[in-house]
Structure formats: structure tokens, C-alpha cells
């Protein structure tokens, strides 16, 4: 998107007016860290904060994409517009990726009330890409009522969705493990809603029971008790309406309890620090590579004469010898 910087406000207006092509190109610029996106993001920020942003996470193969498709169907039948982000992993070896979340999407090709974007994780840990939050915010600014973010098939510590979504659904299937698995730290801690998918399979009732029990073992600090809902995306689908009712109940809880404002502050504080950390990191990397005295410092560390902590101290002090 070369030349977009001069068109920042115009591009922002086009996105708000519903120009999907400009939205698509701006998402690309954001993903690529193209500085031309900065002005567009800046111009759009005041328009954001209206959409319900819901995270759908859970291990690979539990049916996240199919659930997203079912939720899109339900929301469209209620006249709500939906932006979807499907994140899949990038290869740590080649950087390549196969993005297959779109494959489950069924919708009319002329339905402008749905916008689906696939994203590769591009080396980010945690289950989403570095740019996912800003892309969700773009969709929010573009006027979508709901933004669904489907994470990479997650592992036990992939909890980054919590920094993007106001409601996180953790999806599991029967026979993922015994009840002690549900007690472990990480993924299961971030669930605002537990979804046991594939209830057409045997063992679903046991999985639902284990999760319902987990919820009773202790109280969450915010006072929300995550509901457990069973779903099946095979026609006739089951539990999709109930799943969305639970999302709305949690969103209402966020408003009435004051947790939304607290969560927003926490998320935005982390975002500001994260962006600042990235920029400072890039600057320090640049200095270490270009400043001759700092390059000598690196030589000293390589030769085991100065330890990395002392060198880092000198680096952040701009190369001056500390004390």
C-alpha cells in the first residue's frame, strides 16, 4: 500500500463507509507492519470500541471453524454483521502457512454482512498473530457488530486471545483427558464460557460434567462463573443459540460489574507497553548492530569477558559504562 500514508484519513473514511477492498488492503498493511497503516489506525481509533469481540480458542480439531460458521449463520439470521479472523500457524522453518479456516464458511457470496480474513501467526506465540488485535479493531471500526477471532489450535498456555476479546470461549471435545486436565493452569483459566463441541460423540456428557465441576471448585476473582454449553455443528445443530446467549450474558456481566472498564484498561495498558517495548527493542537492536563501541561490547561478551546482563545494562544506558 505505497502512498497510503497521504491517504490515511481518506482510507479511514472509506473503511467506515463500507469499502471492503480498502479494509482488506489496510489489514495487509497492518499485518506487514507497513508504516502507512499508522495514520489509518490513528484516524479510525475513535470509531472503535463498539463491536462485541469474541475469541474462540481450544486445541486443534475441536471444531472451532465449524462453530464460527454456525455462529455466523445465527448472527446473520438476526441481522447482525460479522467480521471473522481465522488464525493459523506459520511454519517456524519456512515462514509459510496453510490457512484453512475459510473452508468451513458457508454464506451467500453476495452477503456484505460478513467479512472473513485468514491470518498466519507469523512467529507469534500465544495463539494469535501480533497484528490480530489491530485487525480486530479495524473490523470494529468498519462497523461490524460482532468480531469473531478464531485462534490457532491452541496449546495449554496459549492465552493471548484474552488480550483481544472481551469474551473468550474455550472449546473442547469429549475424551480430551481426565478431569485433572481441566484443573491445570493456562487455557482453562481464561474461559468465560466452556463449550463442549461434538456432543453427538459418546462421552460428551462426562466432559460437560467435569467442566461444570471445575467451575464449582473455586470462585474467579471477578465473580463470573463460566457456564458450560454443549454444541454440535452437524445438522440439525445443537446448542449454538445457547452458546451465543451465554456470550451475551457474559457481555452484560462485564457492563454491570464494571469488569469491562477494568479489562479494557488492563488490555490497553498491555498494548501500549507492548508497542513501546517493540520499538525500543528494534532501536536497541539497531544500535548494537551499528554503533562501533556497542559492537565491541558484543565482542567482549562473545569472548566471555563481559556477561550479557552487564552488556544489556550498558546498552540501555546508551553505551556509557555504568557506575
Amino acid at each position: 500500500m505505497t502512498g497510503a500514508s497521504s491517504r490515511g484519513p481518506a482510507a479511514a473514511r472509506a473503511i467506515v463507509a463500507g469499502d471492503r477492498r480498502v479494509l482488506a488492503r489496510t489489514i495487509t498493511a497492518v499485518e506487514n507492519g507497513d508504516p502507512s497503516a499508522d495514520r489509518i489506525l490513528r484516524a479510525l481509533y475513535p470509531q472503535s470500541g463498539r463491536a462485541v469481540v469474541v475469541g474462540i480458542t481450544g486445541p486443534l480439531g475441536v471444531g472451532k471453524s465449524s462453530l464460527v460458521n454456525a455462529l455466523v449463520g445465527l448472527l446473520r439470521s438476526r441481522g447482525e454483521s460479522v467480521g471473522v479472523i481465522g488464525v493459523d500457524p506459520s511454519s517456524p522453518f519456512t515462514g509459510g502457512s496453510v490457512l484453512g479456516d475459510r473452508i468451513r464458511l458457508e454464506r451467500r457470496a453476495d452477503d456484505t454482512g460478513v467479512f472473513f480474513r485468514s491470518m498466519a501467526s507469523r512467529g507469534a506465540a500465544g495463539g494469535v498473530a501480533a497484528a490480530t488485535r489491530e485487525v480486530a479493531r479495524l473490523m470494529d471500526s468498519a462497523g461490524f457488530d460482532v468480531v469473531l477471532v478464531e485462534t490457532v489450535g491452541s496449546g495449554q498456555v496459549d492465552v493471548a486471545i484474552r488480550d483481544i476479546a472481551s469474551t473468550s470461549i474455550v472449546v473442547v471435545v469429549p475424551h480430551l483427558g481426565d478431569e485433572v486436565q481441566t484443573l491445570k493452569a493456562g487455557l482453562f483459566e481464561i474461559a468465560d464460557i466452556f463449550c463442549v463441541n461434538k456432543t453427538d460423540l459418546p462421552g460428551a456428557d462426562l466432559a460437560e460434567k467435569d467442566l461444570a465441576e471445575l467451575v464449582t471448585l473455586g470462585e474467579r476473582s471477578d465473580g463470573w462463573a463460566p457456564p458450560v454449553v454443549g454444541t454440535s455443528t452437524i445438522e440439525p445443530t445443537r446448542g449454538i443459540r445457547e452458546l451465543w446467549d451465554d456470550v451475551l450474558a457474559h457481555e452484560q456481566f462485564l457492563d454491570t460489574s464494571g469488569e469491562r472498564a477494568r479489562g479494557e484498561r488492563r488490555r490497553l495498558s498491555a498494548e501500549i507497553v507492548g508497542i513501546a517495548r517493540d520499538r525500543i527493542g528494534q532501536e536497541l537492536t539497531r544500535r548494537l548492530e551499528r554503533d562501533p563501541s556497542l559492537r565491541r561490547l558484543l565482542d567482549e561478551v562473545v569472548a566471555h569477558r563481559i556477561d550479557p546482563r552487564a552488556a544489556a545494562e550498558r546498552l540501555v544506558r546508551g553505551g556509557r559504562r555504568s557506575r
Partner: protein
Amino acid sequence: MAKARAPRKRPVRVLIAKPGLDGHDRGAKVVARALRDAGMEVIYAGLRQTPEEIVRAALEEDVDLIGLSILSGAHMALFPRILALLKDQGGQTIPVFAGGIIPDEDARRLKKAGIRAIFGPGTSLEEIVTTARSLVRHPS
């Protein structure tokens, strides 16, 4: 502090789709995997896509390249339709390549219509990857 963030190296985004009604997707999957291994981000749209769905996916995903796989024989109807829709919707600069069972005479006509490269059975993956890369470098 340096003002501009250094733009990250931009991976090529490519849509691989199967228009029409045949269910043989092994070829499309082999190509998708080869392009993945070449460092590209492959949006795999899967089987039985209409031209409208393919064009919509290409524009939403803002791809640099579109690859179509077809074995049903309906290429003379579906490919020109996809090219026409792309043109209508402002995506005419996205290069389109194709693979499958496409007779030489049809291939000539399709290339004239704007399909940039056509790969028949036996084409090496290396050739497909090399061509895909060069199409992205020279979009029109």
C-alpha cells in the same frame, strides 16, 4: 529513536481454490503444500467453490496470486467467469494460474483470456513454485 518501523518481510499470499463440482483435490493440496514450503501463505479455500466465492475470498484476503485447480472439464465456462468477476470488482491485477486436465487448444484460449500460466499433469513442483514467484513479481 528511529521514526519508522522497519516493514517486516512480506510473505506472498496466495489463494488456492477448486471451482466447480469435481471432488479431486489431491493436486490442489500438493500445490498448496509446495507453496507453503516455499514460504508463502496459502489460503486454502477447498472444494466446490463458485466463481463468486473465489473472487470474494481473493479480495477479502487481499492475495497476491490465485491458483485454480480443475479436473471436471468445466474450465472454459468457469475460468473466464472468474476473470470477468475479478475485473468487475477491481481485482484484475491479481495474476491467476491454473492446473488440471486442460487440453492444449483450451489452454491457448485461456491464456489469451488472461490466465497467466497453466500446468498440466507431470509439471514439477519446482516449476510451479518458480512460476508463482515470478507472477507475483510481475503481476501484469
